[in-house]
């Protein structure tokens, strides 16, 4: 049954995933092109100077991609469940409810992680060629916060879509807005190093909100 649920999620999201993948490839291509051109025209040393003296991480083009991906994936995956009233059917499948819900958002998280892994591998391959490992670490530590924003947008987005009442939905939207504000409040590389683990744990706790929205839906709460 778990595999069936995953297949159902795949059917719902495959169009979006291919679209997002296409957008990512274009963005990454543009990003790499500008890096390679900078290195060719001004010398590789310019990349070092930009990272060390201008506080760039050279992949700023990708900054808002993870958060947009997370939010849109949540909408594509969960909005049809509510608008076409499929959620009731899904929850009545002969499969433990917790496992059903976990399989649904677990699928989404795996998709997000696959995208983030692709971005990470490209960064690793490209930058290892141009700059020292310490600077690649700096780029990763900065990009990790953007990935975290993507996961937060997905989990909170899922909870918002599944939430049956507008009052609670407004509260969740407020919390998500504040969390995203925090995650993008500083553009200084590695500014979040000291709270990265704490933020990661907090963002993962967002799973509780997904379950809470499902339970509230089952209780039949309405505006």
């Amino acid at each position, binding site marked *: 049954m778990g595999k069936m649920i995953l297949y159902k999620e795949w059917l719902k999201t495959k169009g979006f995933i291919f679209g997002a993948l296409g957008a990512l490839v274009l963005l990454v291509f543009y990003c790499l092109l500008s890096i390679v051109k900078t290195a060719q025209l001004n010398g590789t040393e310019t990349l070092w100077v930009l990272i*060390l003296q201008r506080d760039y991480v050279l992949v700023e083009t990708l900054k808002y991609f993870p958060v947009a991906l997370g939010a849109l994936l949540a909408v594509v995956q969960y909005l049809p469940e509510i608008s076409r009233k499929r959620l009731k059917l899904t929850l009545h499948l002969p499969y433990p409810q917790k496992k059903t819900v976990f399989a649904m958002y677990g699928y989404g998280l795996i998709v997000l992680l696959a995208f983030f892994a692709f971005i990470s591998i490209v960064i690793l391959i490209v930058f290892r060629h141009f700059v020292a490992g310490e600077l690649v670490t700096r780029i990763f530590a900065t990009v990790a916060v953007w990935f975290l924003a993507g996961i937060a947008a997905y989990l909170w987005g899922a909870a918002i879509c599944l939430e049956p009442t507008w009052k609670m939905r407004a509260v969740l939207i407020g919390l998500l807005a504040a969390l995203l504000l925090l995650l993008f409040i500083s553009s200084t590389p590695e*500014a979040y190093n000291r709270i990265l683990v704490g933020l990661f744990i907090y963002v993962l706790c967002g799973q509780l909100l997904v*379950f*809470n929205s499902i*339970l509230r839906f089952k209780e039949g709460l309405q505006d």
Partner: protein
Amino acid sequence: MKTAAKIFLYISLALLAVWVLPWAWRIVTLKSYSTPFTLYSCVIHDFTRLERSDSKDLTFIDRKGNVYSDEVQPLFYGRVLNTKGALPDTLEGRPVTLALIDSMNVVFDASPKDFNRKVIPVCLLMESVPFRMELQDPEDAFVIRKEGIVLYDIKDNTVQEEKTKAFSDALASQGFVFPVAQYSGNPSHHKSYDEGYLLIDSAGNLFQLKQVNGEPYARRFTQADGIGARYVNITELSSMALMGWFTDGADNMYFLRPDGQVFRSDVKYNPAKESLLGVGDIFYYTIKVSDDDGEKFYALRADDFSLVDSMDRPYEFEKEFNLCKYIFPCRLYFTSSKETWVRPHFVDFSWIGLIVDLAAIAAIVFIRQRRKNKARK
């Protein structure tokens, strides 16, 4: 699961409240506050603050309230006075010219943000004695690791084994003990000369490292031995009067001459918490150290950095009504002008706010319980 979700939700809302609402209140009630530019005068030997008179002219006022024109600061306003033909020929018994004044005037500053940040263990390395005399963009970099440094050719991102050995040996020959505790450098060609990097080793001793004709130049400042340097900053002032400054664990400030002389001053300065502004001339350095409570001024003699005078100027804020103090038990903020880190700071703890909140929670629980009881009946 539901209880855990509720607890998570309430904690999140509480954090949001103590973060956003006091922030909004501060923005609404924010008023600008500035203090006048203040310099030690070599003419009247007192601190003078710069203010605009009723006729919109700039005037200088000393601590006794006497008002002066810009002639009281002939070194800072040398060019203006020279244009007016009012530049004195001698000051403090020493002949002065505009060229001499220009060459000896210095300004340097530092902010806690310069020190409270993630230190990148990678340093661009310039050629200090370039072939064509003008400083060029760096072509090398050294990476600081626990056990030593590694030189990179940044044109092709390759490790330079020979240079690594040469630079490591140069530091080792001066008794450098790894790892590096703190360093300061300014690898930019927008300056008149390059002194490379000032480094503090794990034993608290102070060193200089630069590249001269492709070879390492390492120097230990023996006069700084045993001081236990904590923070260091290179200044590379165009006058070459000052190479840098450093502080020790007790926040004493020391000045470093290019010839290696170290001068202990009476300035108390904690770079991680306070801001620094130094304005110097041929005779005196005015050092301003400021924090959240006020400013402290020191006038130091330029030749040996001995204290001539000092002055405190506490900030005179009008105490604003702080509504949040009566609503919230504390205030939460994540970014500060003193650091680049994003991290939670819980400040301004208020017992009144805590009691008000606990009373509000108790009232809500009581009302809910009563409603439930009524519904049961």
